[in-house]
């Protein structure tokens, strides 16, 4: 029985992939009077379905580790199915249904974690529902404009109507992707969610917001340009969106550096990455959209990889703070490589595909002549090196700082399999940066009516500004590495390993186990001394939202005081209201 259920679970998790292979044609039926649901697979949705098809089974696999949490497995099913519905939606109602199923099932999954506290879960669900309701409002407004729920370009609308629509839907999707200042729910929920589910949250669910943003562009005849004209070489409305994205990345990057917890760091880094994607969507050219999609792909691979690795660490050590870990490189080598490949992808370093994605975005920014945005984006993506380094130094390098970290063993095989698959994918795309472009991204661009950017071969990534060749790059690097290592080993001389991890040049001192040698927790603290960074880090939106919640509770108390338990007051109020309205009527109408 249990085996069959687990098999079923796996099949559900594989269903996005199966759907991609098997889906053709479309499906539609009436929900209620005048509301017709129709399912179809557009190339754009297909791209995001690919992301889901990668993330869903890879996250599902480690969830099958015993002891099984049946509730989580059961909730994962509607989550995946809801997301499929969302992507298959040919009309906004099924889009919304999928969106909402995704929202509540992910919330309930979040509750499965014993660490989830009230503030986190409330902020998660309230922000997501706010997003959903804004979406619904936007959908209804769209309906009032077009008279139909089918997703398609609008025609004959005024500027004001387009603006309202863009603001409603845009806000909904921006909450989902977690841009500033609507990001407050992201870090704590990614942090407190069940460890594996965080991977899915960051890898797949946040991408749905990206999907929505791109979908939003397709609603307008001339994408964002139709909203407010052009600025330099790009759409003026997109300039605003792009700045939102960039400010998000910058702030989130510094917040990530300041975190002392692996999962929180990854959460902020997700915000930052999605910020880049938002920027690229703001630029809106074919290069930029390709970059956005590419980055979405890479981010999914990387974040699923990283979160699963981190989940393995947490599973084996029970620790999640940088100061409690360290020196796991020897104890968890596969996880180390997982995180290593992950951060290389995350930081956008060549030769892994993270660079290809960033390259496209950078070039698109130059192409749009939005150089200031480019500078701000470089700031974020360079500062990202610091948290990437922290992420690998904290758990894996340095010194083991807790008994658990000293005795940890490698994560179970079921955690390692997805990691290895993802690593292989990332390396493959590093060799062939043009592969995702030609296979996955170009069809989307074609469907959106934009020019394609695929090059002559899979190995090449080409743009109008020039490109690079992944195979040559990889080979040169690998050959250089082998050569250097070989020559080095040919040199004469004794090379030996230190007899103890405490054999450090430490100003003549002899450090011991009790010496605070691990720099994991405090890393990046000195950034506070840089005026701009300090200014950013001292600020937060939590106070604002807590204040809002406090005001709501105060209002509740105030209004609640009306509901006193004394019948005479109820009667008095009824009579007074009656008399007052009568009086008002008599004054106005002349009784």
């Amino acid at each position, binding site marked *: 029985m249990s085996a069959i259920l687990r098999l079923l679970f796996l099949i559900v998790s594989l269903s996005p992939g199966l759907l991609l292979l098997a889906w053709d044609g479309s499906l539609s039926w009436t929900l209620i009077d005048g509301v017709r649901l129709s399912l179809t697979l557009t190339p754009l949705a297909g791209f995001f379905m690919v992301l889901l098809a990668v993330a869903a089974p890879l996250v599902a696999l480690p969830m099958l580790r015993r002891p099984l949490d049946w509730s989580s497995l059961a909730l994962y099913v509607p989550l995946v199915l809801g997301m499929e519905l969302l992507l298959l939606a040919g009309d906004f109602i099924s889009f919304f249904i999928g969106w909402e199923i995704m929202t509540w099932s992910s919330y309930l999954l979040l509750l499965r974690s014993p660490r989830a506290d009230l503030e986190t879960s409330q902020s998660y669900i309230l922000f997501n529902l706010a997003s959903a309701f804004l979406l619904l409002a936007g959908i209804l407004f769209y309906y009032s404009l077009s008279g139909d729920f089918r997703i398609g370009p609008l025609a004959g609308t005024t500027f004001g109507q387009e603006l309202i629509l863009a603001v409603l839907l845009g806000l909904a999707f921006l909450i989902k992707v977690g841009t500033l200042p609507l990001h407050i729910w992201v870090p704590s929920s990614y942090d407190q969610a069940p460890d594996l589910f965080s991977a899915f949250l960051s890898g797949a669910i946040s991408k749905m917001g990206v999907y929505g943003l791109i979908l939003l562009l397709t609603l307008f005849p001339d994408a964002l340009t139709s909203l407010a004209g052009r600025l330099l070489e790009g759409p003026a409305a997109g300039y605003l969106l792009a700045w939102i994205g960039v400010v998000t990345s910058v702030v989130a990057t510094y917040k990530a550096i300041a975190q002392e917890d692996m999962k929180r760091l990854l959460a902020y880094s997700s915000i930052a990455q999605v910020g880049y994607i938002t920027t690229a969507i703001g630029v809106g050219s074919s290069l930029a959209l390709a970059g956005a999609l590419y980055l979405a792909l890479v981010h999914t691979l990387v974040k699923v990889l990283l979160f699963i690795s981190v989940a393995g660490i947490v599973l084996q050590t029970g620790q999640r703070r940088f100061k409690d870990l360290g020196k796991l490189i020897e104890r968890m080598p596969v996880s180390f490589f997982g995180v290593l490949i992950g951060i290389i992808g995350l930081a956008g370093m060549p030769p892994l595909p993270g660079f290809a994605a960033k390259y496209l975005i950078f070039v698109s920014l130059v192409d749009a002549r939005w150089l200031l945005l480019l500078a701000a984006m470089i700031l974020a993506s360079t500062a990202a090196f610091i948290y990437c380094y922290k992420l690998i130094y904290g758990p894996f390098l340095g010194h083991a700082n807790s008994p658990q970290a000293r005795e940890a063993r490698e994560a179970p095989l079921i955690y390692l399999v997805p990691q290895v698959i993802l690593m292989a994918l990332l390396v493959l795309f590093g060799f062939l940066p043009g592969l995702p472009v030609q296979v996955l991204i170009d069809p989307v661009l074609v469907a959106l009516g934009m020019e394609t950017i695929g090059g002559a071969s899979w190995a090449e990534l080409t743009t109008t500004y020039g490109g690079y060749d992944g195979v040559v790059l990889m080979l040169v690097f690998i050959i250089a590495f082998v050569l250097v290592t070989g020559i080095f080993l040919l040199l004469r001389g004794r090379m030996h390993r230190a*007899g103890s991890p405490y*054999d450090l*040049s430490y100003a003549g001192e002899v450090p011991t186990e009790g010496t605070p040698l691990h720099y994991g927790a405090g890393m990046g603290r000195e950034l506070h001394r840089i005026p701009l960074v300090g200014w950013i880090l001292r600020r937060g939106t939590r106070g604002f939202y807590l204040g809002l919640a406090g005001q709501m509770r105060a209002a509740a108390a105030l209004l609640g005081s009306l509901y006193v338990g004394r019948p005479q007051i109820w009667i008095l109020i009824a009579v007074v209201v009656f008399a007052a309205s009568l009086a008002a009527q008599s004054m106005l109408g002349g009784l």
Partner: protein
Amino acid sequence: MYHKTQCEGFQCEQAMLEVPGEAESIRQGVLERLVSWMRHRSLFVLAYGTGCGAIEMRPLMTSRFDAERFGIVGAATPRQADVLIVSGYLALKTLRRVIRSYEQMQEPKYVIALGSCTINGGMYWDSYNTIKQVDRYIPVDIFVNGCMPRPEALIEGFVALQGRIKNGEKGGYHHYREHIDWYKANQRKVLGDQIPPTYTCDWYHAGGVV
């Protein structure tokens, strides 16, 4: 912990302190000569400012005396250094650090002891916690005497050391390796439990002295 060889500690002091023969002419191949030449032209100095010698070492690097023209520059950490300068008297506390730093240096490595205090305790000859003869604890290649010696004297010491390196003579570190028991016994005598950890000399335990 360390094997007893023929004798221990101060019993065989005189034998140990004798210079192992007057610079027997060492035969070197072309490559070795080249390497020696490179080595002597480039000395990274870990200046251990224990006593008043620290004051005398600073001018060495500055414009007046300009040690850099001999290829002598400072190094921040023992890992990068070739030469350790013990500048003046060593208290027990500093001795421990000096030994530790010395052991952490990568071979080939040399020691220059600066000032009279390193030779016989100097003005601290009767101090209860000052080391009188540094070469009982670490092998000293060059002593530069004086109280304190001027930078010129120090440069002369360096040049002498360079000469020995150039000729391919065996440095003190060979001596340290060969007589580690003796050095360790001496160190233990004065430092007791405070002796630097033995893992830095793990080659010793790995079997055989090279």
